[in-house]
């Protein structure tokens, strides 16, 4: 089976990985790097559970081929907390009750991180627009929106 060799930066660490040519970034992260926080919910870009940040933008890792990640900078959910200190959005998700089963949570948090970086004080409509591609089946979304608003306030006042 043919292979690709990819050099990419994941959560601040530059690595070179040789893996199957038809593997997606999702399974490169999970199987080759053991980063299981990125979830597979549909493998066709419909649920957003595999959302990671690629060069700062949210993408579905299930729709990026390993070779296409060459030279890119990837942030996964494991790379968000620095020195054990949670990202404000992670804290807000906990405090606002935005986490139930948690399978959608890594993707949602990363989509929200990208939103707040571009739009520090988003309107509710902007939050909905930014999170359209992340399905959650447990919470009914209200507590997720509340969490993002709370984090935006916290970042704003920091």
């Amino acid at each position, binding site marked *: 089976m043919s292979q690709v060799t990819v050099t990419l930066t994941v959560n601040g660490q530059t690595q070179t990985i040789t893996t199957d040519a038809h593997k997606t970034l999702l399974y490169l992260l999970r199987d080759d790097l053991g980063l299981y926080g990125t979830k597979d*919910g549909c493998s*066709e870009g419909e*649920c957003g559970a595999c959302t990671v940040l690629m060069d700062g933008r949210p993408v579905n890792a299930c729709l990026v081929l390993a070779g296409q990640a060459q030279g890119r900078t990837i942030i996964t959910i494991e790379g968000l907390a620095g020195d054990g200190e949670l990202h404000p959005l992670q804290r807000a998700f*906990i405090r606002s009750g935005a986490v139930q*089963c948690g*399978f959608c949570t890594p993707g949602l948090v990363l989509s929200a991180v990208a939103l707040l970086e571009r739009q520090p004080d988003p309107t509710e409509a902007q*939050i909905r627009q930014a999170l359209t591609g992340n399905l959650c089946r*447990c*919470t009914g979304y209200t*507590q997720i929106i509340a969490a993002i608003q709370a984090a935006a306030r916290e970042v704003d006042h920091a």
Partner: protein
Amino acid sequence: MPELQVVGQTVERLDSRAKVTGGAAYAADIAVDGMLHMKIVFAGRPHALIRSLDATAALALPGVVDVITAADVPVNVRGLIRRDQQVFCDRLVRCEGDQVCAVIAETAEAAEAAARLVRIAYEDLPVLSSAEEALRPGAIQLHAEWPGNVCHRIHLRQGDPDAALAAAEVVVCGEFHTPMQEHAYLEPEAGLGYIDEAGRVTVRTSGQATHDDLRQIAAALNLPEDAVRVVYGAIGGAFGGREDTSVQVALAVAAHKLRRPVKTVWSREESIRGHGKRHAITIRHTWGARRDGTLQAAKIEIISDAGAYNYTSSEVLANFLYSAVGAYRFEHAQIDGVAAYTNNVPGCAFRGFGSPQSTFAAEMMIARLGEAVGLDPITIRLRNCVRTGDKLITGSPLVGPVSLVELIEACAARAGAVREGDGWRLPTPESTTPTKRRGFGIAVGMKNSGFGWGIPEGSYARVVLHGARRIERAEVYTAAADVGQGAHSVLAQIAAETLGLPLDRVQMIVSDTATAGDAGPCSASRMTMYGGNAVRAAAAEALAKWQNEDRPASGGGRWVAPATTALLPDPDANRNFVSYAYGAQAAEIEVDIDTGAIEVIRIVAAHDPGRAINPQQVLGQLQGGLVQALGWTLTENFITHDGRIETDRLSTYLVPTIRDVTTPVEYVLLERPDDVGVFGVRGVGEISMILPAPAIAAALHDAVGVWHDRLPLTPERVAARWPEYTG
């Protein structure tokens, strides 16, 4: 009751930190050295004879270790209530999701490639694609043991409904159709089978009841139950869809045979084919009432599509014995129901367990009756709804305080309805857009908590207190599943409260049949109520021993729930349930008369959690259930054709996105403590799911003057009933 310290507080869930950092391990996240990979070969056809199975080419592929078939399963059946499905089909396939064999290989890729090389010769058979078809005389028979394809029947008769209907001043009729619903939990089925250090056949997976899974595995492998172990890690949602087994038995068979760890992970398409659905049900009602709107008699027929195997179809149907009449009092009633075997994906548990369907029909009926007798929707409901001291239609006393009247009034008032004379004046919302119409609707209902019907119920828990002078650490052992609802955290709060400890000194040891007895499933809104009782009893016992100088001090065992009865012929002997949840919801909608699109503008939801152990989590349950109901009502259109699922992806089966849930929901929470639930709790897992559909359908009628008796209310269905429709 002394003032509570931990119970009643919104505290951080025990699992949320791991879940926001990516550290929580779901079944697919487990990898161990030397692990094999399993690819299940599904039938992928609704009804067929297996003429032959040839695995030669698959076995020849490099990396393939084995292909396991029916011949590898000592007792080749599984099933939660009725063991009517083969683990691997050896002769007959009855639905697309039937498992025929499984390929096991050194890599997932090899397993998948080899699965395509297994040659199975099928002879397709005629397909029963609906319950009505299956019940027709002369229909082909799907299970020899269940003649006429009758999976289950229910019958109840109280009073003399025929005479009462003949004499009734007002008679209203209706026929209602509710669709299948896919659970669409975000985590597809997955698991790891292995032999543990004690030699037990172990399956680590996601489910709703460790011990139910264990019993099915042990039976299939013909092993004593103590030779099997089931462990759950983080679980990515369940909603009833994980009550039945999916990967469990196949993984156990593989690990048992090969003595190596075996992992399997389903794709979304496999998940949608491979687990059950909310039942598609047709319900026919005839109601008789006095001219003043007082209900007298009901005759009700229920036809449920059980799908290819029973799963929980018999129990879901049985719940119609009380829920078919909604939350209303009748003197005379006849309820006849049948669940039919078909070649569809099996019907199974899904949040509400039949009550969303029964409530939709009953609420559409009361709405129609109100219209017929000229009473507003609130008054007609208040006139007929159950109150404290009333009985179910079975004769079973409604134990505990019945808060329904209070909830209806609170909901109506918050929604803007005003008492006027003998009745209520409802809001009359108007759209400002010429092509849109607004409407207002209300629905009320109840849902049992706990199984009832005489099923022995209880929950096991054990608490061990460590320390010398003070309790340094309390270990709580429970096998309860945390399917995402936060059960472990709530049980920890209950332990902390009982022990008088801060929460951080409680350590939960959970979801492992090797460390705790049967907690019972996370279903029927029962885990906080009953699992919580077990934890409190165990903690109290341990605390007593601690005070008696035991070190460590241990308490617990099986807490037994108050007994219930099956449906008994003598109404006075019935005691079918011991706890209920009640609710009332009002909806304001705006419908686009050209496109048929419905926008839900506002919802008021009045509920009674008895006592909220963790108020934030109670709201999470209510909102989550409500939004699943919005999906069932509006966007989730599960389509099968001749037994084949056509909506097997999240791009064709449309669960609500964050853009679809723009409705502000105002919650009115009244805490009226229940007698049975721990600290007075009532189950809140399901009640909010049963009301949005009838509230929205009533609002739609208010908006456009059309009764819609078939869900979901897709834009096409709504538009097609408008006079100017040109399609």
